[in-house]
């Protein structure tokens, strides 16, 4: 592992940790953005340009903005009076650890299924595009359908509120 990896890992972990411990919600959102950026740089270090830039575009350009909007529109930006630690933090910790364990186990298991490659495969953006509309077109379409459903749902929710007002 190179020193670059350790620097990036430190940024990502510090961002993630700060997102949990900081008091103000907006600061947490900004900290989580730093973690997203660290992840994107890690992808870049692994030579996965497409994933890295998609990560920045989607997570910093859209998800972080969405979080920020949600905080500002719900008065969550006020400082909580009774501190940020919930009384049931232990349960939360157990659940988080369990989710992490399942994900880690899956990743480790999937490593065995992949044949060991000595050379780093050079994947061009073009190949990713071909795969997306070729072999993986069904998952892509399912995701597209899901997003369309979510968009329609959001529009309906907004329309309903407008009618109720009048």
């Amino acid at each position, binding site marked *: 592992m190179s020193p670059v990896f350790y620097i990036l890992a430190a940024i990502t972990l510090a961002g993630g940790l700060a997102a949990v411990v900081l008091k103000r919600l907006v600061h947490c959102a*900004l900290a989580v953005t730093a973690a997203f950026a660290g992840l994107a740089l890690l992808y870049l270090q692994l030579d996965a340009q*497409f994933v890295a*830039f998609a990560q920045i575009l989607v997570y*910093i350009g859209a998800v972080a903005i969405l979080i920020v909007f949600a905080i500002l529109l719900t008065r969550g930006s006020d400082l909580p009076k009774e501190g940020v630690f919930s009384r049931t933090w232990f349960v939360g910790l157990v659940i988080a650890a369990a989710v992490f364990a399942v994900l880690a186990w899956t990743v480790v298991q999937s490593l065995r299924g992949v044949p060991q490659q000595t050379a780093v495969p050079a994947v061009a953006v073009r190949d990713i595009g071909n795969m997306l509309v070729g072999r993986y077109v069904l998952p892509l379409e399912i995701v597209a359908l899901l997003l369309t459903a979510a968009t329609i749902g959001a529009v309906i929710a907004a329309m309903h509120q407008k009618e109720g007002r009048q």
Partner: protein
Amino acid sequence: MTTTPASVTADQIFILLRDWLAGFLPAGLRTAADVVLGVIAIVAVFPALFALTTVFERKGLGRMQNRLGPNRVGPYGLFQPIADGIKALIKEDVVPLRADTVVHFLAPLTLVVAVFMEFAVLPMGRNMALVDMDAGLLFFFAMSASTELSVFMAGWSSRNKYSLLGAMRAIAQMISYEVVLVLSSISVVMIAGSLKLTKIVAEQNQYSGQFPHWYVFTPWGVAAALMYAIAATAETNRSPFDLPEGESELVAGYHTEYSGFKFALFFLGEYLAMFAISGLGVTLFLGGWSAPLQSLNVIPSWVWFFAKVMLCIFVFIWVRGTVPRLRQDQLMNFAWKFVLPFTLLDLVVTALWRFMGQGWLRWIVCTLILAAAYVLMGRFGLREERMGRRSYRYAE
């Protein structure tokens, strides 16, 4: 190629200069030196261009509004940006008492850094792209998307209602028009078959007779370029889409509480974003650094790139001097009810263009579809809604 060696030297002068400078270093350091010199060139050239553009803009606006513009500092007011720069440097840096100091400090920095990164992938001449990435276009959009958060940081940390409102407006507007920006560039990607900006320029750098194969000279290209221009104006918060800093309503929007050099950084970031987005537009639709006629290729490629960028900047200024500011609801309606559907239709037309093969038939079919859609949407889509009595949601 009919170019003579002298014109080749002029074309590649900056590359030769860079290699000559790097030649003074030991061989192991040369690659690093190349990168550093490229970065220095970008960081020096574009702020200089920004200084010139501020005079150009104020003079141009003055001309359009029948007044003189700056004319006191230096000949024709040309040294005005130097005076402004010195003023910004020696002004007191006022930070509001209740402001979030760290975020308030970081906001202009992250903005300017992200905007400078955008220039890394632009091919500014033959062999003159700092990093020739495979996913160059995606990198550009990733960087321009990360400026939104800086705007929010500035608006929120100032602890000022005007700042926060300005930031929210800016973000809502940037998100809406970013969709259009990306979608209109996708039609170029569909035809060029690559996200690599140098490849996109190379595809357009072909000539039939004297005339270049720029994408703006095709029916889908005109439509995409127009939509791109509208989205670019909104994305850079320029008039008529300058609601985030509408002086009459919001003082100065998200940078109300910034003074001195931090304000200058916001100003710089805004203009650099304009250069970057014009540069991308030139690369995507106007053939990048390629000459408008084949015989004009004797003039160095970088001259053409910067000439085209300055032409785009002139259009920005011209529009600012001509069109009044939109209202917030007009802005959103325009984005979601006209620009976005038209861009989506243009994607379909581009696919049609791609699969109809060579020949004149595709010119007629594509032009007809786009023209018909434009007329119909103008007639029915944007029809003035009947305004009832004005109702106030909160003030009754």
